[in-house]
């Protein structure tokens, strides 16, 4: 689990650029994530953090540079393609269907079927519930009511369901855009502990946050973006809040 420099990167971006007309949202940006590593992405509003992860996850194409997955150059035409390659993006606005159970959300779009009476295809709710229980157990999330719609759960719990879906489908790289922004303090702590679980399982995590406390609590490294440019990269153990803030605002 002490991975940093030795192991080969899971994901690497090299000199990635993206402009929207005249706006250079991302400029020659490079970074890497290794297995079992949590990399925090910090930067002021409009620095280009969301642009970066959208370029990585196939929401749109970068205008320059390349993305390497386990050393191989890749391009993703759609988020679906990125997901198939094991890159899962968890958005702050919680991409869950609130009226469905945890299992139904994990399997949304890929529901398992079984045969009732030997011929009639029906949704295999039991298989979904079992998988949900196992998956959420791996995240130390102990579910008592598997049939309850996720609207019954709190924001942090639903965040855990979104992460659980990624874990079930065996995503190796999880990208989280401000996963704690909409949550209260106890809930934020739960999400942080979920990120620790993902790290322990050897997955790579890119974690965007405005909250330096969260970043210092969970990350191995921090990469700072300033107006689309990589303004610095530090090991968490070798930096402090003041230095990070200075990198963010420049000067």
């Amino acid at each position, binding site marked *: 689990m002490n991975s940093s420099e030795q192991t080969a990167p899971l994901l690497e971006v090299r000199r990635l650029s993206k402009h929207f007309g005249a706006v250079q949202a991302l400029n020659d940006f490079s970074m890497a994530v290794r297995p079992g590593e949590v990399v925090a992405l910090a930067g002021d509003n409009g620095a280009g953090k969301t642009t970066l992860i959208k370029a990585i996850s196939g929401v749109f194409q970068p205008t320059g540079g390349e993305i390497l997955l386990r050393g191989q150059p890749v391009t993703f035409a759609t*988020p*679906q393609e990125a*997901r198939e390659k094991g890159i899962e993006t968890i958005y702050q*606005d*919680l*991409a*869950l*269907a*609130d*009226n*469905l159970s945890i299992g*139904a959300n994990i399997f*949304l*779009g*890929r*529901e398992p*079927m079984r045969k*009732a009476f030997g011929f*009639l*295809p*029906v*949704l295999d709710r039991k298989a979904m519930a079992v998988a949900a229980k196992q998956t959420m157990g791996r*995240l*130390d*999330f*102990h*579910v*008592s*009511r598997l049939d*309850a719609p996720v*609207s*019954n*759960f*709190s*924001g*942090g*719990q639903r965040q*855990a369901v979104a992460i659980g879906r990624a874990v079930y489908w065996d995503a190796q790289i999880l990208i989280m855009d401000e996963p704690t922004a909409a*949550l*209260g303090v*106890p*809930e934020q702590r*739960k999400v942080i*502990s*979920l990120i620790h679980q993902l790290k322990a399982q050897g997955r790579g995590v890119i974690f965007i946050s405005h909250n330096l406390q969260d970043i210092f609590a969970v990350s191995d490294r921090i990469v700072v973006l300033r107006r689309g440019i990589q303004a610095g990269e530090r090991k968490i153990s070798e930096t402090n809040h003041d230095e990070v803030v200075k990198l963010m605002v420049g000067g």
Partner: protein
Amino acid sequence: MTSTSPTETHVAPQADHGDPARSWLARVAEGRAWLFLAGLIICFEVWSRLSFGATFVLNPFNVQSIAIFAVAPLLLATGQTFVIISGGIDLSLGFIMGLAAVVAAHATNMAGVAMPVPLAMMLGILAAVIVAGVPGVINGLLISRLRIPPFIGTLGMFGVARGAAFLLAGGTTVPVQNSWFALLGNGRFYGVPYLVIIAAVFVVVMHYILSQTRFGQHNYAIGANVQAARRAGIDIRGHILRLYVLSAMCAGLGGALYAARFTAGAAQAGEPLLLDSVAAVVIGGASLFGGSGTIFGTVAGALVIAVIQYGLVFVNVEPFWQFIAVGLVIIISVLIDQAQRRFSGARQDE
């Protein structure tokens, strides 16, 4: 703000526990249509006994009449249930049903010239359902490809189907000359009208599609959060297209059965039933915001409306009271839905 969870190390769902008020309210909201139905039947029973000394609900003739009465609105309402769960609405169903009734009459008569009576009947029903699918395809394309809101797109189709139905009928009703067709609409099997048997089978099939297939599951997901459904890789456009074809075909079957019952096709067959179909779905527990509802809830909703309409006539109340009674039930039903929504919503704001 109202977080109930104590400081705990793991993330166990607790918001739904230890809160009897919530689950009580949720259960009432879910089963409200059956509660309404039971209440209404008791009311009419008491009313009938007090004023005429006769039973209302234990009279098999009444039960049968109510069941037949409920068939056509129920067929529209099952299709409408799917559409409303997806977060849409289909205003064109009434006139699609009229169009289908006219097509069923014409097709049965034309086929009857060349082939045996039962075959002609089958062909007539098939033609009605298929022709009804055409406006469904157009609705689906307008909504999924051209991004026209369902309310507007199907309102346009309401006009188009209406005009087409009246043109095809030549402005009058079209009598059906087919003995089997008449039997289908008015005959009984061990005392149970064929129409009711067909509707019951149909309802079970639709319940299966909604509750046990991917199509049904995706329909709920789309109604709750289209973006989540899209990100999960669901083909939203294809789904919406199939959805509106399905609802139109329900209306198509409704039209064919109307033609069987009255041995005539009429363009205005479904005109008064459109609002009843929406009402049945809402009374049945679906939310007009999408994401919730069941077929059996809708069945109860359709029965509530049928019992009100038939019951008020039975106890000799002026028919106009029907509108008021159905309207009040809709309003109460929506109020319950909102109360439940606000109550469970308050738990999530933190």
